[in-house]
């Protein structure tokens, strides 16, 4: 590694990888700022307030920019959303998915980790730990 590489690596923040056991014992909880309701179809519709960034402020001078957006979750997303109550652990959610949808443990875990990561990144839910790192949503790595 040359000198530039060493300097770069010195300043590069190391990503924290949270142990799997800690993720499994975490309890996801919905962001209280997000208003949501169950539609007639049974799917959850969320109303998410948009963050007033500089870009958005500039755009709002030129266009009529809504202050919120609506997201409708699919059936599986709705199921997961409804159990993000701050009382149910990730492991319990996995077990529920396995039992209800006859999925293997690995399938449930990989898909749930990936989905929770998306929800955390977007600020829709919170977990007990920060910096949750989850694996690629494929089941197996091709070496």
């Amino acid at each position: 590694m040359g000198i530039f590489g060493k300097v770069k690596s010195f300043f590069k923040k190391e990503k924290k990888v949270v142990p799997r056991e800690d993720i499994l014992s975490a309890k996801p909880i919905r962001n209280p700022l997000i208003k949501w309701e169950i539609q007639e179809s049974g799917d959850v519709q969320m109303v998410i307030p948009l963050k007033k960034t500089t870009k958005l402020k500039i755009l709002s001078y030129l266009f009529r920019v809504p202050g919120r957006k609506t997201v409708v979750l699919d059936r599986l997303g709705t199921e997961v959303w409804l159990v993000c109550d701050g009382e149910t652990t990730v492991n319990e959610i996995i077990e529920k998915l396995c039992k209800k949808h006859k999925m293997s443990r690995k399938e449930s875990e990989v898909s749930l980790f990936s989905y929770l990561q998306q929800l955390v990144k977007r600020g829709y839910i919170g977990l007990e730990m920060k910096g949750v790192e989850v694996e690629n949503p494929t089941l197996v790595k091709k070496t």
Partner: protein
Amino acid sequence: MTSDAKGWTKFGWQGINMDIPADWSLGAISGDKKEGYLRLDDADMPRMEVKWRDAQKGTPALPDVVQKYLDDLVKVVTKKKVDIKTENGFDISKIVRPLPDRDKVIQGFYWKSSTKAYGMATFCRECRRIVILQIVSPIDTDVRTLISRVFSSFEDHAIGGADLWAVYDMNFKVPSEFHLKDQKLMPGYLQFSFTREDDSFALDVERWGLTDVLLRELTVREWYEGQYASRLKGNKVSFEEVELHDHTCFKVSGETGRWFHEWRLALEKLTRSKTPTHMHSVFWHCEESKKIFVVNMADRDPINAIVSYVASHVKCHENETE
């Protein structure tokens, strides 16, 4: 599902198959039938590694094969400044009863570092495959029973002319002349694409999960027609209901009838690719396992026995009557 009451299941990949604990799953793969590697993991750590290759002429000296493997392992481990103790020629028959098929030459080995592993290298005189397999475990765990079951159930080639493919609770057989061309292993969707060496027609075996979501407002036929619309479009197909695996299955067959089909056939010699003229498919919804299984093939034959064979050898749920 293919696991038995004691938490064991069948694993099959590239002609290799054995019994494994139900909580082990495929963690890594590479290569093909001639030479490759796979790893099985449990929730905490990698548990089993299998490497295979076709042997050159004659009978390979397994002690040398094992020694080279152990030497490479020692190099990697000592670079990390970790101690390792190895034993080539470990008497695996002390643990594994019965030993795999007697048509195999077997060389056992053992190593111990921060974890430990029991392994064996095998050479099969029938299929001429050299396989090295090892089971890794924590130092303080007694794994003799586990190793005995896994190793004694090990097979390195197809029995009865069909390879067993069994991963992630999916279990099916495909005639051995088919080779795996591609696979998609995603949560909720598994696809295996096979071809034969003498043609380019693909045999696809697919499993769709979460059917209570997929079929919420559709019948399985409506779902199939929507999902495979591009494949069905322009083709003259017929749907026939048949009984299979205690389910009502659909058998789809037909002729490809796209307008440019004639031109493609005429240009075949230039493009060096064979154009299929018929499509065949069998699909069904298994309510017990909440999965949809689809077997597809497009080829030149108006009658295709392969799709029916493969479909009949898919194990879609436990306790199905065969």
